[in-house]
């Protein structure tokens, strides 16, 4: 039952190909796990990792084909199946968490995406999530227009003008992958205390202080 390594080409060919020169399925799995846990604990939506999700889904798919071909008498069939189920749980849990964030902060997220596009940056949402966000936002818009149409002059109190934002000043636990020096613990305060965090160290800290470090992979939320 050999795995099809060509599945990994997607990842290798993606824009930052230097980051992914040679990556095994096991390493993709590690990435998926980090991505899942980060998303669980980050107050805001993080940049999508569609390429990782897609590889996992492909791996699941090809593994399921293989499993079908195994005899029911082969006790390893259970092991293969359980691994597939575990992966599917991780992927769906990750996608569900993102959907909840998208729904909760849809207006804010779409506005941020617009800014990113203007600046030529890549979107945080995957293509499918972006479509979902737009559909969801439109249906909210339609609904609130109906509710509030008794008074046509109330033009400024619309659904999309009352933005709910995630609280990025939420406290999170993190583990550092490298040594970080001079990190302000309260970015709202210009005279904030600065801290050094050693590689491998675990701390509780305000998310807004480490937002960028989470996104560029220097720290993991735990």
């Amino acid at each position: 039952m050999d795995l099809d390594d060509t599945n990994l080409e997607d990842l290798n060919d993606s824009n930052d190909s230097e980051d992914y020169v040679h990556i095994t399925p096991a390493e993709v799995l590690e990435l998926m796990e980090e991505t899942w846990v980060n998303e669980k604990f980050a107050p805001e939506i993080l940049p999508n990792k569609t390429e990782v999700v897609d590889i996992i889904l492909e791996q699941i798919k090809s593994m399921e084909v293989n499993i079908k071909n195994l005899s029911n008498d082969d006790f390893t069939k259970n092991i293969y199946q359980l691994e597939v189920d575990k992966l599917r749980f991780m992927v769906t849990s990750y996608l569900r968490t993102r959907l909840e964030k998208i729904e909760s902060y849809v207006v804010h997220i779409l506005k941020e995406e617009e800014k990113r596009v203007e600046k030529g940056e890549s979107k945080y949402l995957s293509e499918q999530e972006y479509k979902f966000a737009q559909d969801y936002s439109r249906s909210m818009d339609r609904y609130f227009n109906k509710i509030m149409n008794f008074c046509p002059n109330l033009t400024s109190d619309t659904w999309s003008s009352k933005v709910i934002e995630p609280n990025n000043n939420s406290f999170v636990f993190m583990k550092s992958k490298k040594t970080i020096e001079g990190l302000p613990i309260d970015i709202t305060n210009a005279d904030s205390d600065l801290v050094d965090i050693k590689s491998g160290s675990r701390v509780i800290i305000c998310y807004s202080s480490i937002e960028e470090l989470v996104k560029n992979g220097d720290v993991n939320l735990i």
Partner: protein
Amino acid sequence: MFGEKGYNLIKELARSEDNLPPYNSDLVNEISHEITKQFEENRDDAQNSTIDGSESLLLNTIRIRNGASKRNIRCLMAYHYNRLKCLRTMRWEFGSILPPDIKANLSSDELEWFSNYSKTLVNYMKSIGEDGINLAVDLKPPKALYIEVQCLVDYGRFELSDGTMLLLKKNSRHYLPRSECEELIRQGVFKHIS
């Protein structure tokens, strides 16, 4: 005092937690009328306040009413928004078909929103990967492939994905693939026995 009706509307919703009370169209309409009235009164007073060109005290009146109608609008918006949030959770917990007694508590606009949400969600799930993925299952980390369940209702016939047909009777026990009964457990048809 201004804003009492809006307050009552919100209190009614806040008290009920995840149980959605009947859509209170009477109170919603009363508040809508209050807003329209406040708007009209303010428009009239605004015209009168400029006749003599001085800083009329009527501007105070307008400011108070303006504040009151903003409050009313906020209560209306929050009432409707939080009901939708609850409906959203219901889609995940009951599935796309709601129990009739819950449906009876919804407005027609809410029912429409619910079916739209359902559609949006299904479209999204279909669009993932090559074959789509069902996000309504695999809610917990899997521990075993087969689990024992007890049927809590007379459900009737139930077909497994391999074609096996089961008759689900109240109190009957079954040993089934976890993936095939998770949704029925969530919906209260089965009870998972550890």
